[in-house]
């Protein structure tokens, strides 16, 4: 079953890069993009998402705060927080909200591995 994926990054180029990788890996999955936490939450109130890929470093609320809010709205959602800032505190906070930490720049390989884990956790081959 195709998944609904939310991509949140303040950089349009970063969203395009993630969309490109998603399109190569799972062209049949639905992608929805948002440039900040507010718009992401507005979208998440209207529709269901299986997966959210969140930039950590965004103006306004960061990717960790957004991850916690999305978790409240959709308890079953699979979350990844993406950043080049791999400080222990940030990686730990990501794990605390049940998110996987992925390094920026995000490679198609790393994204693919995360998506395989998600499929397995959701009981799909």
């Amino acid at each position, binding site marked *: 079953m195709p998944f609904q994926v939310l991509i949140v990054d303040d950089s349009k180029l970063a969203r*395009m890069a993630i969309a*490109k990788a998603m399109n190569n890996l799972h062209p049949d999955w639905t992608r929805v993009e948002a440039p900040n936490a507010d718009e992401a939450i507005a979208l998440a109130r209207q529709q269901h998402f299986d997966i959210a890929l969140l930039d950590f470093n965004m103006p306004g609320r960061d990717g960790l705060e957004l991850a916690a809010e999305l978790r409240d709205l959709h308890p079953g959602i699979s979350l990844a927080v993406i950043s080049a800032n791999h400080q222990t505190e940030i990686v730990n906070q990501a794990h605390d909200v049940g998110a996987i930490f992925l390094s920026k720049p995000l490679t198609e390989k790393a994204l693919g591995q995360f998506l395989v884990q998600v499929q397995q956790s959701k009981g799909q081959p």
Partner: protein
Amino acid sequence: MSDQSRLALGDLQIDALTELVNIGVSRAAASLRELVNQQVFLSVPRVTLVSRAEAIEILGTSEDKGLVAVHQIFEGDITGRALLIFPEINSLELVRAVTGGALPLEDIIELEQEALAETGNIILNGCLATIANMLHRSLKMSLPEILRGHGKDLFNLAPPPEAGDVVLFLYINFAVRERDIRGYIAMLMDMPSLEALRGLLDEFIERTAGGMAPEVNAPA
């Protein structure tokens, strides 16, 4: 072409550059965290491209006191100067934050040069090395040097700058151990370097997102 349009980078080029410097300072934050053994907050809320005169004016308007800068020269496809600039009043704060704040004032003053050079080197290298790597180019960096003065001093270093020089001006927020320190990163380069940067950014955009038209309903 007018000066203004020669100065301009396209929206996606600015977006790409902002993304590159954010990745660069994020990596620098992770390196600094190892140095200070505490979480370091480092972000670039804004990136602008201005003329040298405008950069001097921005610094003159927002900072009436003296400035301290860590200065490094970079050479390669893009050649120029990188400056990490703090209001002078913030530089001792920065040293206190980095060293942990337990040291007596005379030690802090003694350590100031060294701590500034080290911190500046990590932040500037983080930015420039990331930009160079992601643009598939190499840059040679000089050793860090500490400068003091006003905006006009920092942007008039010998050899004299060319009339058309531009400044990539980044506003940075830096916080560690409950101390908030605001500063700037400035990359001063000449027109040929800006042209080279523009070309490299286009190649980077093509590599990163090539074939992906922005989604019709996606926000700008």
